């Protein structure tokens, strides 16, 4: 029988869970745990400079690897600082466990120093939260936390640990449970066979079909199945911002992504389709535009692990609850065996129409002889990294440009805060990726607004030698806010101009990194090439881009999917 303190049990449970890295920040209520961490070397701790960044780091790691990330913070402000990060992970269904110190159980409710009701505060933004009531429960709670975080529709789980649960001199028997069983939590393991059959029949009969895939395909590790099904059928596919990489972007069946800033051809094809096969997406408002005008002629098959995502905003004709990989496997078999074959003439006519749409816009943008366009920067990066880099982004115009012009052929490489839209996400997420992918190129495409929301992490990058490349698309304004003000507020730029920008080069240097400024168009490619050759350095690349550029296409507010602005003057 092995006797351990609560703190040692916690760290031992993390080891037994196979956790390699945790990201965190110490403080009073977590000190017993930090001491236990110090006395071992299997679980490595990364000390960030702000707790929010620890969560985004864990998040970046989780998105790149598909494994749950782990965060450790103290009570009170340490815990509340994680909330934005947790909400970010929650909106994008990212598996994660956040371990929070808490004041001793004897003090809870007395407004003790650094006391916050973290269970209450985090409740709306977690998949679940758990609080430790006896040290002996710790191994079971940790096991349960990871199980809940990583299964079904993944999400963040918070564990609240009062300080007296980790007291060093109180020891208990350590038993790490082999299995977790919860009578009230049983995610579906396969889809309904009858519904799947019905869906395949509809696919075979469709004349204008489209596959609409989302982040669930990546989270459900079903990109191979999706690719196989789409290629077998020969139908067009579009995906959401979160689904980027679930199907190779360079493939001709791929129409790009859809929605507010999606491609013209994706949105047109969706609107005119007669059948939508939705795989692991959730008909989010940034996709559908006005729901009452959404795809009037389309019947909808919706595959999702989360029944609550089905018929939430758009009614599904054929709902299929189940893991996407298993459901797609069954569909592939049925499609292959099907006596009915797709109507070749109808599908050919549909493709002809789609190709016309594709040729009509083709993600064109105006170039200028002397001003660097943000789109050009992303295209250059794509070319110079052979489309193989991990790209994280913050939120705003640069995020959209990165998603539009970097063509991802693989999953898990496009890492952004799609649901919550969290500025300050990009740099710590890139750090989380780089730590476990030291030999891969990791770019953080950002803007001068977003990067300043977690700029302090440049210090963490120095401490742990994380040579990410920060690509700052500097337009000296909060570009997306300004774009909306241009379009909806007669160009009254309320608080969207950022004066007094720091000298980012000196700032990077102050933290011990390199800085490169690019403000001439002819320098763009050569200098980016130089930057990418600096393998061992974090380089802050401050690129002065067109201050007046807008992101297009852009759906017209409250319109249907096909109502779009294609440039500042062109509306369809």
């Amino acid at each position, binding site marked *: 029988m092995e006797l351990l303190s609560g703190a040692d049990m916690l760290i031992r449970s993390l080891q037994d869970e196979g956790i390699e890295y945790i990201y965190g920040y110490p403080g009073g209520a977590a000190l017993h745990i930090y001491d236990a961490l110090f006395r071992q070397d299997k679980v490595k701790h990364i000390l960030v400079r702000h707790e929010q960044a620890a969560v985004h780091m864990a998040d970046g790691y989780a998105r790149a690897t598909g494994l749950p990330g782990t965060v450790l913070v103290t009570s009170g402000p340490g815990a509340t600082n994680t909330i934005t990060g947790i909400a970010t992970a929650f909106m994008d269904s990212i598996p994660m466990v956040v371990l929070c110190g808490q004041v001793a159980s004897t003090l809870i409710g007395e407004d003790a120093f650094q006391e916050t009701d973290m269970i209450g505060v985090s*409740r709306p933004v977690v998949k679940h939260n758990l609080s430790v009531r006896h040290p002996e429960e710790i191994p079971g709670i940790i096991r349960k936390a990871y199980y*809940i975080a990583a299964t079904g529709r993944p999400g963040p789980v918070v564990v609240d640990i009062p300080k007296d649960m980790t007291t060093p001199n109180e020891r208990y028997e350590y038993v790490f449970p082999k299995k977790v069983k919860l009578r*009230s939590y049983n995610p579906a393991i396969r889809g309904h066979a009858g519904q799947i059959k019905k869906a395949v029949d509809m696919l075979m009969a469709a004349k204008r079909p489209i596959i609409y895939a989302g982040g669930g395909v990546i989270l459900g590790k079903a990109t191979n199945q999706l690719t196989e099904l789409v290629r077998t059928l020969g139908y067009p596919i579009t995906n959401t911002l979160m689904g980027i990489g679930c199907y190779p972007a360079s493939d001709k069946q791929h129409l790009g992504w859809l929605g507010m800033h999606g491609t013209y051809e994706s949105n047109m094809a969706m609107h005119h389709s007669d059948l939508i096969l939705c795989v692991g997406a959730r008909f989010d408002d940034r996709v559908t535009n006005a729901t009452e005008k959404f795809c009037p002629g389309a019947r909808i098959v919706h595959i999702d692990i*989360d029944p609550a995502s089905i*018929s939430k905003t758009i009614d599904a004709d054929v709902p299929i609850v189940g893991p996407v990989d298993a459901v797609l496997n069954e569909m592939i078999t049925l499609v292959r065996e099907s006596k009915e074959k797709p109507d070749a003439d109808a599908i050919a006519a549909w493709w002809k129409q789609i190709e016309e749409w594709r040729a009509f816009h083709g993600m064109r943008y105006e170039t200028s002889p002397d001003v660097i366009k943000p789109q050009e920067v992303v295209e250059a990066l794509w070319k110079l990294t052979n489309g193989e880099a991990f790209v994280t982004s913050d939120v705003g115009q640069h995020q959209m440009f990165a998603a539009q012009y970097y063509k991802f052929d693989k999953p898990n490489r496009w890492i952004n805060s799609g649901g919550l839209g969290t500025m300050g996400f990009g740099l710590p997420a890139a750090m989380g990726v780089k730590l476990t992918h030291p030999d891969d190129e990791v770019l953080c495409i950002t803007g001068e607004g977003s990067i300043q929301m977690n700029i302090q992490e440049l210090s963490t990058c120095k401490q742990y030698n994380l040579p990410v490349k920060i690509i700052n698309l500097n337009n000296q304004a909060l570009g997306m806010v300004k774009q909306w003000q241009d379009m909806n507020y007669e160009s009254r730029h309320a608080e969207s101009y950022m004066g007094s920008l720091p000298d980012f080069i000196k700032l990077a240097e102050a933290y011990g990194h390199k800085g490169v400024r690019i403000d001439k168009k002819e320098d763009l490619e050569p200098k980016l090439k130089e930057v990418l050759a600096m393998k061992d350095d974090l380089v802050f690349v401050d690129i002065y881009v067109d201050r007046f550029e807008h992101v297009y296409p852009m759906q017209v507010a409250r319109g249907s999917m096909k109502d779009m602005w294609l440039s500042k003057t062109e509306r369809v």
Partner: protein
Amino acid sequence: MRRIISVLLENEPGALSRVVGLFSQRNYNIETLTVAPTEDETLSRLTVTTTGSDRVIEQITKQLNKLIEVVKLVDLTEGSHIERELMLVKLKATGSQRAEIKRTVDIFRGQIVDVTSSVYTVQLAGNSEKLDGFIQAVGTSGVLEVVRSGVSGIARGEKVLSL
């Protein structure tokens, strides 16, 4: 449309707040809510009455089911069911009012459970309309205090909500 959703919930601290939080987070109505442990002490039985379109009710049941501590639930209004609510009412009862109130209580099959020289305390059980009807019948001017338990419900016949 009004619905009665009956939930078996893990009898754990914080479980109830998760249910209540869900309703406010997602902008759903709670009209009444009752909760108490069952014969199996690890489980609580919770009954919530709510209103909403079919889409909203579907979302409520799905979102409730997603809560880890929700073991099972049923929308009782989908089948035939029995619903009951308990009400305790303090009524001003002096002079000729006393006989009149007593008669009304009898008609509604209630009981006077406490008496003073000027006050009757009446206990009444039934569905919510019956309780409303009683208040109307005695007239609000005589009502000193009303305590209602909220609705509890159970399906008719063989159907049971259990593990």
